[in-house]
């Protein structure tokens, strides 16, 4: 008997859709309710980052890197600043390095909390979203104490930081660590090990490790497929080699390795590892001046540099070409979300429309990062 088929249907998902995490448009080709092809259409948030980088001086580019991946502004700043510092060949004081690590780990927690909360929201669970945003407010409060801004900071400067941390920040960070551990346990009980949630996410959108590696997928999305690859360990930058933490990978505790649940749970576990790093760093911050190495004028010699860092979304790299003037000749950003989204067609085929929402959510994309 010939296989029963319905007429092919094209469905537009987005750019205004509550679960596309921004202004992404997915063109779905459907056979009944089964997805045959997913075509992401990008460019709804193209904000001309590279053009701006050409027209600005080196320090002026930092606020634009904030706005690329707005959920983890600190990590973006850090990656760009490290690339400029490599070009300049300057050493920053150890105190600065410690504070940078603490800030980017706090940012990782904030970013992962948004990822977990909105993922719950995608699956129809509103409560984890409310809890996660409540906890995220506490992290943002710490940033506010240090630099005054909640989301986009311009905090990490070339050669230093805009403000030194205060004793209040240290005590509040310690309080946060104590507060977050039981909260994460609660969120895990509420969402991660919830039967309904597991039914929605386990064995959905299985991403085999070799496909992930070939497509340049990185970050928790790659680690969800069981690949133990984290730039903080594999290619340590800043002072990450001083800290003791584990790389979280998807182990198939529920579902199978590489499915949506495993990608999701890596983020929940990584929050604990970030707390560990902060715990180790916060007690051993050396004394020093955070602005002693800030150059009066950032004017590197002609050359190029590339620095890659582990942002909460994956491998974030900045490639800078300098022609010896005050402005960068070219800045290319290798954004993790852009590479991660490229596998969506391969792993969504054969699933239902509702599963596409879960698959997309499990990548934790940020459109500012994709379109730049």
């Amino acid at each position, binding site marked *: 008997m010939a296989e029963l088929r319905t007429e092919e249907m094209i469905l537009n998902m987005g*750019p*205004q*859709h*509550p679960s596309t995490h*921004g*202004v992404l448009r997915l063109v779905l080709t459907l056979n009944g309710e089964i997805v045959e092809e997913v075509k992401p259409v990008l*460019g*709804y*948030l*193209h*904000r*001309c980052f590279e*053009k*701006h980088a050409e*027209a600005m001086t080196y320090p002026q580019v930092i*606020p*634009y890197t904030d*706005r690329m991946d*707005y*959920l983890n502004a600190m990590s973006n700043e850090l990656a760009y600043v490290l690339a400029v510092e490599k070009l300049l060949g300057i050493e920053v004081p150890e105190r600065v390095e410690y504070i940078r690590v603490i800030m980017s780990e706090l940012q990782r927690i904030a970013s992962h909390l*948004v990822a977990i909360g909105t993922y719950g929201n995608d699956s129809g669970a509103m409560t984890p*979203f*409310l*809890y996660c*945003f*409540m906890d*995220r*407010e506490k992290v*943002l409060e710490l940033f506010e104490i240090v630099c005054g801004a*909640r*989301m*986009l900071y311009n905090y990490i400067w070339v050669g230093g930081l805009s403000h030194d941390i205060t004793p209040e920040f240290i005590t509040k960070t310690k309080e946060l660590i104590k507060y977050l551990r039981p909260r994460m346990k609660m969120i895990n009980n509420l969402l991660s090990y919830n039967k309904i949630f597991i039914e929605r996410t386990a064995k959905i959108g299985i991403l085999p490790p070799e496909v992930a590696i070939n497509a340049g997928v990185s970050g928790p999305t790659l680690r969800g497929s069981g690949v133990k690859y984290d730039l903080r360990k594999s290619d340590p930058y800043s002072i990450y080699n001083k800290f003791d933490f584990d790389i979280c990978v998807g182990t198939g505790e529920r579902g199978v390795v590489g499915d949506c649940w495993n990608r999701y749970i890596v983020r929940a576990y990584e929050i604990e590892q970030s707390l560990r790093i902060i715990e180790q760093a916060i007690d051993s911050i050396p004394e020093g001046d955070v602005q002693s190495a800030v150059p009066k004028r950032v004017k590197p010699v002609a050359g190029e540099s590339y620095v890659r860092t582990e942002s909460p979304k994956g491998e974030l790299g900045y490639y800078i070409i300098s022609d010896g003037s005050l402005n960068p000749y070219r800045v290319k950003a290798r954004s993790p979300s852009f590479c991660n989204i490229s596998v969506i067609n391969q792993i969504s085929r054969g699933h239902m429309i509702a599963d596409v929402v879960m698959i997309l959510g499990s990548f934790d994309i940020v*459109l*500012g990062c994709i379109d730049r």
Partner: protein
Amino acid sequence: MGILNKLDNSVEQFESGNIIITSMDKLLNWSRLSSMWQMFFGLACCAIEMMATSASHYDLDRFGIIPRPSPRHVDIILISGTVTLKMATRIKRLYDEMPAPKYILSMGSCANCGGPYWEHGYHVLKGIDRIIPVDVYVPGCPPRPEALLEGLIKLQERIRNQSLAKHTA
């Protein structure tokens, strides 16, 4: 009598029965400003602050503002972020799909005037008011949740002063 207290001086109530006298304007405006349903629609960085505002810490629900995914259900649209040229046509279309009366709140510098992208942003619309009329502008990059709440209260004030008979600017 919570509802009647809010209508305060515009209401005349009779002691004996369930009869109140008020003007049509007052009643309509009061009902509109107390349940401004918002489009579930985020553009860029400001959308995260918008989400933070509607989450538990700042709680937009207490103003009667509930996000709805369809433009046909909503009264206000928060333009929360950078409007690119590619997105501008979509926003115009979404605006056209909304039933009247409809209100626009432009959130953040990008939606107000192009923000940090005003000079070199070849793909950025320099202000959402070039395509749709804006009621309230909230400055900031991104505005704090308190600033957004202030903007929404300003919008409520604006609705309170509306009139069916005469057009108010």
